[in-house]
Structures are given as structure tokens and as C-alpha cells.
């Protein structure tokens, strides 16, 4: 995993509440078995009209915001479907961080597992940053992950990140590898668990055998 300590760049205002993952990446972009080409689908219906032409009025289509690295969004960003394609697509699109008052829970974990930084700030702090970045002249934002601070043209704010997530960004972490170092413990746990609850052992396999 790439190690990150600072994210700096243009931030695009996207002040829409409950912007769900269906809108972040619509269904027609979920048909592949790899992660390639997902950037094409990011916010597709907002970026393109029904003829497939770019919508000039959409913020990410405006030259000043074309190279945005950060989104400043509304509450409950990424709610809805668990599709991790939303995170992969945003990263491929060039987005490295999203600032919002709150995030959908599954989206939050997905983002953290892929080093897409999510910064949750109080609603009025997000609104103040929005007032800056809505002006293309003041659209630069700097996020310091080590210090856990956000700086826009006129604002600065602190955010929190769990120690685990902060380490994931700063040091990178092979989560599966770390868990697999506890494999014996997991196996022992399962054996003890099944001793008390034998009806759970191989539940999927035994059911499949029954349903022939």
C-alpha cells in the first residue's frame, strides 16, 4: 500500500446530502471482475447527460476543478450499497480524500481499506470550507494526516482518525497477513465455538449437500 502523510490539491464542492454509492458509481459499471476502468463511471449521471455528453454545469467538468483531488460533500456521503467499486473508482478518478459531516458506514470501512481518506468535520466547519472552495481561486486544501488537520483558504480544522486507521495511512498495513498470523487462535476459537454450538459447523456445506 502507498504511504501517505499529506494530501494537497484542488477541492471540489459537492454539497449534496445522502449522496449514495449508486450515484457515485452506477450499476452499469459494476459488471467487470477486475478494478479497471471504474473512473469512467464516477458520478456518471452528474457528469454526463443522457446522450453521453459532458454536462458543463457540473463542478468536476469545469476546468478549474478538473484536477480535483478532494471532494467537499454533504452528510451521509457514500450511504447505501456496499459496492467497494465506489472507492476504487474515486481513487482511479484522482480523488484522494473526501471531507463531509458524516459518511455511510460500509463506505467508511471500504475507504479506509483502500487509503481513500475520509475526513469527518462538524457540519458548520464543512460549510465554511465549502464557502472557500466554491470560489476556484480559493479551492486549494491541504490535509495533514500525521497532524490530523485540514487547511483551506480561510479555515483550519482538526479531525480525528482511529489509531488503527492513522497507521494504515502512514505505515501501510497488510491486514490479512496480520490476521493470518493469528490463524491458530482462529482455528482454536472455531473448535471451541462448535463444541458449544455444533449446529453451526460447516453449515453452508451440509445445507448444500441436503439441497440436491
Amino acid at each position: 500500500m502507498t504511504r501517505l502523510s499529506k494530501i494537497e490539491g484542488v477541492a471540489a464542492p459537492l454539497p449534496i446530502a445522502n449522496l449514495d454509492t449508486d450515484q457515485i458509481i452506477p450499476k452499469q459499471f459494476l459488471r467487470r471482475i477486475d478494478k479497471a476502468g471504474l473512473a469512467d463511471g464516477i458520478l456518471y449521471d452528474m457528469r454526463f447527460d443522457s446522450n453521453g455528453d459532458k454536462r458543463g454545469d457540473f463542478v468536476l467538468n469545469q476546468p478549474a476543478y478538473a484536477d480535483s483531488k478532494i471532494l467537499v460533500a454533504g452528510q451521509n456521503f457514500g450511504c447505501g450499497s456496499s459496492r467497494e467499486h465506489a472507492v476504487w473508482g474515486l481513487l482511479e478518478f484522482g480523488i484522494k480524500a473526501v471531507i463531509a459531516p458524516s459518511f455511510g458506514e460500509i463506505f467508511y470501512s471500504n475507504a479506509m481499506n483502500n487509503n481513500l481518506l475520509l475526513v469527518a468535520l462538524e457540519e458548520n466547519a464543512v460549510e465554511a470550507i465549502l464557502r472557500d472552495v466554491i470560489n476556484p481561486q480559493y479551492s486549494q486544501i491541504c490535509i495533514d494526516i500525521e497532524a490530523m488537520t485540514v487547511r483551506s483558504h480561510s479555515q483550519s480544522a482538526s479531525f480525528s482518525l482511529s489509531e488503527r486507521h492513522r497507521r494504515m495511512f502512514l505505515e501501510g498495513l497488510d491486514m490479512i497477513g496480520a490476521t493470518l498470523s493469528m490463524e491458530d487462535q482462529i482455528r482454536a476459537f472455531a473448535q471451541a465455538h462448535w463444541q458449544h454450538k455444533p449446529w453451526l459447523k460447516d453449515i453452508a456445506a451440509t445445507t448444500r449437500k441436503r439441497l440436491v
Partner: protein
Amino acid sequence: MSTSTQTSKTLYEKLVETHTVARLDDQNVLLYADLHIMNEYTSPQAFAGLAQTGRKVLQPGQNLAVVDHIIPTHPTTIRVIQDADSALQASNLKRNCEMHGIPFYDANDRYQGVEHVIVPEHGMVRPGMVILCGDSHTTTYGALGALGFGIGTSEVEHVLATQTLVYRLARTMRIHVSGRLPFGTTSKDLILMIIRKISAQGARGYAVEFCGEAIHALSIEARFALCNMAVEAGARGALIAPDQMAFDYLTQRCPDLKGESLAQALNDWRHLRSDAGATFDAEYSFDAADVEPYVTWGTSPDQAIPITGCIPELSSIEDETERQTVDRALRYTRLSPGSALEGVPVQHIFIGSCTNARIEDLRAVAEVVKGRKVAKHVRAMIVPGSGEVRRQAEVEGLADIFLDAGFEWRQPGCSMCLAMNDDVLAPGIRCASTTNRNFEGRQGREAITHLMSPAMAAAAAVTGCITDVRNLGA
């Protein structure tokens, strides 16, 4: 999470505790998963990750996979996936399951269906389990006292390799519902009312326990619909303590449990409830008597009103952000502030999804449409939740009622709930839908979704407009 040192515990805390392999830090535990369910579209990159690192599936027998999201639902006996990418997703899932010895339900399997319909149907959801799936509606399983929740694909890979999840603990919420649901209303109306009142992020970060007389009066299938949609309020899990109705449901569906083994299981399940003195981080209470048939008018599941009500007036909304949100939603759904939903014409009816495509849902639809016809200019489709549901509906004569009325009686799958297959609405089409999400573009670009109960969708089918099913008469 309430890290209560007292001995009284919530059901959620008990389920987490009995599945904690190790405490990782103050916020995270390594949580063991009794069952992990996969579909064709959120698992491929997880299997690819395993292949890349040469890792194995730790406990294949605790996993299963089913083709449900991309599968066509045309009423043909043998199903062929025409779309090349979708066909590859299905064959890739089959290959991955064969390679790792994972139980698999293919497109033409007799038991194929929507993942959250087939898994409980065959007794694979049992009280006290932890169940994970790369699908947000995994909260469904709380109806039987199992902690289920959706995960992303990176986590799917982690679960495949380790049968565990690095799990951030949730806060606890209790929602008490007193009384009984009135005539003409269902658990779908109840959950739409709750989401409307607490908002689409009202339960964000919480594992919700539903309790009270109204909850325990619900059938198990009605409880599935309730827990299924808790995620639309942002919940990280939904639980109902298992009761006699749950035990009866399970006894019928778990043929491996009989005599002593059944007694042992029942004895374990009877202890699965929150202790009397347990404290929750948040509490709500509602009166079931306040429930009416609810219908959504906007593009978020919390934008719902009782069928007798009106869409909000913009001038009545003080908060500017909220006013913009409502305005944006109404421009999308092409409705006016202050107007009623009753009488709004629809062009499409969709009865299906992991929320409302079980046999009781189909019976409710049949009761409304029996002896009636689908209105002119309306296309109405029923996509049963599983092969079992489809066969049962045929045995009971429901399928004939649907076909006589002019419904399409289709093969099982997720279908138009998220429109990943070829069941996609055209722009501007307005749909009465028994699904769970009315997001912009969910059922098709510029298509308009109105969430409602199966009976309400059936009423809309026969009148051609959004209708209060209570006024339809016999």
C-alpha cells in the same frame, strides 16, 4: 459502543462477545463469522486478491455463493445470461467456488434466488450467528436474532482468508414499538415510518434492537423486511430477540436438528435477549397505531409520507440544506411541494427484492389483485425471491391469479431493485416498487421509484396510480 462493565448486556454485546477471537484495540475486535455469503459482483476482486497472494480459503464450509444480482429474470425455463460481462461474472464465481470448495448456487439451480431470501429459507440463519456478506442488506438476518451486516470487497477477501473480520464496534440503539399494526399496514410501512422519523442517517453507527409488542406480533417474514431496511437508516446491524415464532420457523427449516440436538439448540437460543438492566446508547419508541401505508416521494428512503399526507412545502422547511435536499429530490421525481401522492399515475409496478419477495408478500399481492386486472398502460412484474418461493406460489395458485390479472410472472433474482441485469426502467418512468432504495437512477437513469408495501404496489397495479389499498374494497 457502551463498554459497560456491569453484568447486564445487550443482545448485540452478547453476540459480539461470543464471536470475539481477540480484542485488537479499544475500538476493534477480530470477529468470527459463522457464515459468509457471496454474490457474483462484489466477490471477484476478493478472489483475485487471494490468487495474487496465494492464500487459501480458511473454512470453505462456512461460506456460500449465489448468482443473483446480474441474472436475467425472463420467464424461461433455462436461463441464459446474454450480456458477456455478466456471463463472465457468473462463470467466474462458479470457477472460484469450485477451486476453493465453496458451496455454490448457480443460475439454473433449483434453489437459486436472492441471497437474503434463500439463506434463511433453508435454515442457514440461526439465532446467535454472525453473518457477513458483500451486500448492505445483510441486516435482514437480525429477524432471527443473528447479527448480519454488509461488508466491502476488501473485507470479503479478509473473511475468505481468515473467516474473521477486523470489526469496529457499533453503538447500541433500541427501538421499541408498542401496540399492533392497524389494518392495511405492514412491517414495510412501519420501517418507512421509522426511517422517515429518525432520518436516513438516524441509526448510522448503531446496531439497532427492535422490541415491543408490535415487533413480536410480526411474522418472521415481516421481520425480515423490517431488519432488511434498517440499513436505510444507516444501521450497522438490526436485531430482534428470537421468540417462539422464531423457534417454530427454525424448527421447520433445520432438518439436521431433531430430538436432543434440537433441544440443545433451543436451549441456547432462548438465552439470546438483552438483559433487563442493559443500557443502550440511544433509544426511540413508537406506537404501531400511528402507522399508515407509507410511500416515498423523493430520492432517499426517509423522504416518505403516509398515503393520506402531503409532500412537504418548501416554505415550511427552515433549514436551508434540508430545503435544497427536498427541492433537488422533487425536481428528480417530478412532483410538486405540498401535493398528495394518492392519484399520481404510475407506468410500472415492480414486486420483488430481498425486502419483499417472499411467499407472504406474494399472498398479500394476490389478495389485492384477485379478480382484478392490471390497469391499461401499466407494466407489472413479479420477481419471486427464490425458486422455492416461485414453486410455492404456483402450488398455492397465486401464480395463476397474477397471470390472470396481467402480471409478468418471472424467474427469481435481484432484478429491478438495482437494475444490474436487463430489467431497467426507461427515463421518466414512474414505478411503484416493493424494494428498499429510491435513489436517483437506481432503477434506471431518470426513472422514478416510489417505495411501498406489496399490498400498496398491488393496489397501484390495478388502479394505475398510487392508491390507498385500504380504500380499494373487496
